[in-house]
């Protein structure tokens, strides 16, 4: 939230001062005097994004200096600052502040915007518009005379994790196909194949798009929080409960959401007890196949695939992956064994999913090969 926006400048006789502020007097004279050295700083710090966080305000500004002999001191210094609460994040406003300041420079150089009193008087109105529009929609279009300026607050998120062949992208919330225009051409081609079941390599083949491009698209979708990555669903998978599982019976919103998500049909939702028992049954050594045999989810009106998907997305359960590690027994044979291509993949870092995707083997083929090889150890974690 932008609490206030002010326009400050270096007055030829009065020194640094706030000329316009919306809402008025949000930053008091005393506070401004204490921080004025950071708002109108030394020459070397011109055109730097400066954020100062003191006295309960976080002020982001971009001081600019225009040198010209027409000004009383041969230069004009001003700084248009956004004020937020001291604990707020302000990174997303930095580029907006800079763009605005540079636009004002252009206006001043071309039209003497800041030097003419009648034009300057427009500033409070413009600042007010920017503040309310950015706070409410994150977008703002400012028209001054004949020039138009578009501002947009772009939330800075953490960098998305890398996407691998064996990941399965799944939409986080109800994704509206109407909003597809928003995305680029490649993403539009990929989107219909994201169904929460196909892994990246398969999406690439089905959509007939290069896998590198698909990964880039999905990474982009991840950045915007449209999709999440989950492991491939297989009946041989194992899952384990996380400490978050205890929240499920406590949190009625979560449990209601869970029941509607995992239901086979909307009209006959499963009982919570059955769903919870299935989650509790997920532990080391129990595959989904075992679980299905034990509980018969079909009769309980539970879709086991949706059950796992909900659990992983909510962090109630986590996948336990199988990691083969090549560990040659040097004592046994005097001759050094030939390292096969499979051995090279068994580094302890690549899981079964990854190796299957890379070699094109099925889970069972790989499992049989690894079981037969005495030099390979298998770890679950």
């Amino acid at each position: 939230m932008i609490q206030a926006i002010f326009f400050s400048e270096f007055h030829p006789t009065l020194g640094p001062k706030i000329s316009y502020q919306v809402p008025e007097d949000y930053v008091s004279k005393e506070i401004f005097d204490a921080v004025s050295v950071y708002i109108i700083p030394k020459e070397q710090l011109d055109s730097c994004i400066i954020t100062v966080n003191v006295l309960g305000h976080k002020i982001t500004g971009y001081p600019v200096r225009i040198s010209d002999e027409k000004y009383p001191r041969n230069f004009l210094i001003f700084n248009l600052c956004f004020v937020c609460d001291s604990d707020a994040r302000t990174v997303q406003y930095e580029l907006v502040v800079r763009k605005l300041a540079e636009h004002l420079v252009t206006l001043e150089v071309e039209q003497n915007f800041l030097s003419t009193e009648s034009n300057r008087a427009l500033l409070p109105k413009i600042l007010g518009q920017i503040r309310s529009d950015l706070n409410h929609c994150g977008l703002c279009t400012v028209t001054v005379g004949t020039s138009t300026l578009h501002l947009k607050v772009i939330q800075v998120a953490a960098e998305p994790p890398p996407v691998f062949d064996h990941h399965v992208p799944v939409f986080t919330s109800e994704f509206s196909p109407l909003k597809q225009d928003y995305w680029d051409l490649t993403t539009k081609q990929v989107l219909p194949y994201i169904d929460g079941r196909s892994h990246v390599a398969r999406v690439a083949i089905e959509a007939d798009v290069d896998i590198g491009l698909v990964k880039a698209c999905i990474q982009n979708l991840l950045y915007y929080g449209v999709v999440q990555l989950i492991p491939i669903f297989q009946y041989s998978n194992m899952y384990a409960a996380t400490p978050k599982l205890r929240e499920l019976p406590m949190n009625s919103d979560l449990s209601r959401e869970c029941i509607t998500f995992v239901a086979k049909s909307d009209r006959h939702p499963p009982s919570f007890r059955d769903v919870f028992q299935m989650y509790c049954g997920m532990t080391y050594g129990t595959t989904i196949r075992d679980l299905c045999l034990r509980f018969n989810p079909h009769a309980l009106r539970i879709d086991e695939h949706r059950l796992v998907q909900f659990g992983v997305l909510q962090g109630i359960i986590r996948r336990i992956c199988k990691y083969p590690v090549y560990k040659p027994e040097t004592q046994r044979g005097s001759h050094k064994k030939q390292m096969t291509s499979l051995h090279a993949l068994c580094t302890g870092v690549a899981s079964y999913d990854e190796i299957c995707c890379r070699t094109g083997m099925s889970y069972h083929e790989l499992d049989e090969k690894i079981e037969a090889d005495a030099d390979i150890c298998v770890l679950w974690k």
Partner: protein
Amino acid sequence: MDINPLAVILVENGSKGDRLLFRFPYDTQVTPSYSKRTRTKQLQTPYSQGSAEDMPKTNIAYSSTISGSVHSFPSKVLSNLFAVKSELCGKKFEIKINDIRFVGHPLLVYHQGEGKCSSSNQESILSFNVVFALKASASHAVVDCYHEVSKRIAAALWHEERRVAYLSAEAKLMTSTQDDVSSELPDDPLDVPYHLILQRSQLARDLRRVYEDLQTSGKIHLRINQWILVSCCLPQKIYNLLDPGLVIEPADIHACMEALRPYHAILLLGDKEKVINNLPLDSSPALKRLINLANPLKSLQTLAADADLTLSHVFQLVGHMLYFGHATIIYPLCDSNVYVLAGSANTSPQSKLADAFSETFSSTCLIQIMSEFSVPVSLSQRRNPLATPEQESEEIQIIIWMLQHHLLIQLHTYVQIVVDDMHPRLFNRGSFRSAKTTRVTFASRQSTPDELNAGSSLIRMPSDSDMASVVSDEALSSPPSHKSINSKAPWSNIHLASLSNAEREAVLQVDAAANSEDMDLFARLCKYFRGKHHLEEIMYLENVRRSNLLHLIDKFRTILVTFEHEDSACSVFYKNSTT
């Protein structure tokens, strides 16, 4: 790493205006991290925030002279920024310029109205500020830690200044050195005065040590003016050095302290002698005693008794040890403990960890042990009856080593009471469960208080062997005729108060509820069946035996569900940057 400092800067605001007294590192050759290289690397990813370069420059002369490194800031600019107005003194000071964040804690030497005693000293210091430069991407918690460091150093300097005018003397030394150099060699590179200052001034050497210690170990332990002790640390850095990839913030340690219970134990992360030798000479004797007596088999409660300390004191010392990365929290080793390979464990056979393991235990292979722990194993299951005492002790040593390196995690069993009524939209149930479901026997129904019986038809499971179900529901809603056992059921209202009506009813329908002994125990323990307490905690809190508890859970298995996961006090130390 965003944890490392970029620079440390000392600024004074005196009667002659602001002045930068010392900065370290001062030489471009010493510059550690923030070079052009890392900058371009950041720009490669399309998600990084644009920097000043990627916007088209207009031809107006407002190009910035300040680039990405602290060295590009002239001393005069820095001193102007950090010699703050008196209104800002005594508070956290934070400013971000482009990609660099500066954090400090400015202090006024003399408060307003508090006159300086001697007029002989013309050059008096009004305020000073010890500032750390960090990367802007450093997290909030890291910035707060640096603020704490700055605050502590400032407090020590403030005290010494008021006691013996230490800061004034050092400042005079630094300014005179700067003046000498600039008058003698006006064309010389900027770093020369700082080099000389470093030779002459104790404070400058201390600040350099602070910078270097933060860079290498994350721990600071020094005496300002060889008198006031400044001792603090960056937990993020310490844990990162222990295990790269481990991300531990002070908030995690606080969360762990919140979850700490007297039945937990501490496990030293290093050799006992080494930990004690690394403690400062004047550290608390209680801490030394605690470390000497620490044993992974002993709970904190026992440890407190052995060390003759109060439990709360032990908790404080444990918090300190966690903060400084000396120890971790475990449940005391015992036969019933179930361990499994941690999800965050590094399983590469080429890792440093594997090498370190084979150095310590030459006879076994880490990968082999890890694969044995791929499924949960209890210590009693692992015990080999034919093993010699030496082999057994090595086995325990291996487990301790793996716990120290956060490779193993202990699984605890939690109990949750679940009845069907939580979601009333139920119809018929799966056929396979009817065999397992509660059999409502005639006797137990008779003993049920009548007010609890209302509405039981909704949850009650009719089964053909059940006589009552043949009698039909009207018989249920009418008050039962025999009330002989009613007097024996006071727990239904008092002790089962933590349960909802539906749950209470379901409990009373279980076969075992007819047995008053079982029911008494259940009533006593039912408040723990909410998935928040693991079996060991219930045993500790209510002083019950494991076998009794397991028996009870088995008898009430129709309404109790168990699940396994790690203890929340311990799990914070398994956070990994990759997961």
